[in-house]
């Protein structure tokens, strides 16, 4: 029997959504180890929304408080998490978020154990934690057995879908003493201008030659707006070369590699060099008038037909859905 420590995140005193995924992953491990899930969160005081951790399967939620923990404090957090982890856990789980990618290696180093980072699958076999993680830009999967104890693992965001597994979620607060550390986060400056980069956007809508002329990209921009600031507009090499769109928007081998949760290819035939830049998208939608276009071979969902009719209809439908 081993317990699992799930390391949660807060921002401005509220639990971050990605933490539910960590609790869900931890629950899966704890069940296989016949242990409990203890969720740990570093904060300056009470954190709102931690009750959701109990709903996702945490037996206990521990808030480690320190006056210097309002913002992420790399060294203070590391000390707090490592100290707790040393009290005897079979595994310590993080989200491979911006914070988790920074914190997990520090904690692992403090514990003197390996870190299996950014994993997409997690299991226990013969008492050992086995993880799968994408390597070589998603072109291969590495299956690894964690031989060190505790098994320190970070989970790729958006992979471990939160599952409701209500547990007691007993609440505990511990006060962290000492210094918050030499590295001090002053704050978070919001991303400028709202225009999302295609490489970062959770939804990418790309256009190709099928749009016929540069002005028609406004159809895609309208669709992007309908998604409420989560979508960016990309372009194929052909239209970038033709000067219709800036080079920074190009998706493909010589442009940007994107892996959004949703990629919508509009009027793009699907040359390999374009596919190379978007094939790791979670879900691919293709809209093209040519039913034989190679893009349909990689698309999860295809719509054959006139994009000049389909895209506005989609924009309208998405708009209704979002409101």
């Amino acid at each position, binding site marked *: 029997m081993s317990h699992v420590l799930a390391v949660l995140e807060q921002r401005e005193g509220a639990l971050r959504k990605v933490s539910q995924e960590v609790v869900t992953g931890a629950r899966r491990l704890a069940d296989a180890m016949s242990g409990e899930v203890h969720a740990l969160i570093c904060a300056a005081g009470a954190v709102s929304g931690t009750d959701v951790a109990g709903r996702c399967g945490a037996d206990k939620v521990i808030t480690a408080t320190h006056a210097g923990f309002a913002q992420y404090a790399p060294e203070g957090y590391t000390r707090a998490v490592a100290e707790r982890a040393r009290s005897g856990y079979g595994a310590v789980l993080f989200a491979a978020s911006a914070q988790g990618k920074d914190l997990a*290696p520090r904690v692992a180093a403090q514990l003197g154990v390996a870190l299996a980072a950014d994993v997409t699958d997690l299991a226990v076999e013969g008492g050992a934690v086995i993880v799968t993680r994408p390597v070589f830009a998603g072109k291969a999967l590495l299956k690894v057995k964690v031989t060190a104890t505790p098994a320190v693992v970070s989970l790729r965001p958006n992979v471990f879908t939160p599952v409701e597994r209500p547990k007691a979620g007993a609440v505990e607060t511990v006060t962290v003493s000492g210094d918050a550390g030499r590295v001090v986060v002053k704050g978070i400056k919001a991303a400028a201008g709202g225009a999302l980069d295609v490489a970062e956007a959770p939804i990418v809508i790309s256009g190709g030659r099928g749009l016929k002329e540069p002005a028609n990209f406004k159809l895609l921009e309208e669709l992007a707006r309908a998604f409420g600031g989560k979508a960016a507009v990309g372009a194929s090499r052909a239209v970038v070369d033709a000067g219709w769109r800036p080079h920074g928007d190009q998706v493909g081998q010589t442009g940007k590699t994107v892996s959004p949760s949703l990629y919508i290819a509009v009027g793009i035939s699907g040359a390999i060099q374009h596919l190379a830049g978007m094939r790791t998208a979670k879900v691919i939608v293709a809209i093209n008038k040519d039913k034989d276009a190679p893009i349909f071979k990689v698309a999860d969902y295809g719509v054959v037909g006139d994009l000049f009719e389909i895209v506005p209809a989609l924009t309208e439908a998405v708009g209704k859905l979002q409101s």
Partner: protein
Amino acid sequence: MKIAVCIKRVADSETRVKIAADGKSLDEAGVKFILNPYDEFAVEEALQRKEKAGSGEVVVIACGAAAAQETIRTALAMGADRGVLLETASVPADGLSVARALAAELTDGGFDLILFGKMAIDDYNHQVGPMTAELLGMPCVTCVAHLDIADGKGAAEREVEGGMEEVEFPLPAVLTVDKGLNEPRYPALKGIMAAKKKPLDVKPAALGASGLEVLALTPPPERKEGRIVGEGVAAVPELLNLLRLEAKVL
């Protein structure tokens, strides 16, 4: 300014990945190896910091196979002063092993800055830099996309979800750098000539035990055959339903 840059020799990301006969590693036949692109930003930053300071030394350190000497020469050709290869037949999957070897080399080095790329494009481990910092007991900021240094103190910006985190830290420090920090230079002809004469020490890497055992390297599952939802505008409601209920992306 005395700066160390820890670099890695990696398979080019354009490489088509073929699994070796052991089922656990990359088949290296026909694979091109390059200096990890994020490490190029680190080397460039080190060179610019040294140039700005007017004096100092830039030392590049790699942990890897003998062939990584080529990679070190690339960094020397860009302008680094000397190189160290911590040689090992293969780089272990456990980043902490590598961090231990690097820390053993870096400790007592008297460096003002120790720079890394934020991650390697082969293993996506994202961890050797901060682990090394912890082993050395040095302050560390990861994924630095903007950097100001003055009077023994640094201010950095790093990308987080929805914005840029502003961080302050004292020197000496370990930083891992992101793209956008600078524009790496190409090696100049004179740099390439000079690189041949720059010192490059080769010593065995003190890796220690690995806490990760590689079981298998496999190709990702084929994308399952997609389907044509329908034709024209009539297909839009069904498409939206599938995205919401089946794919769960909306």
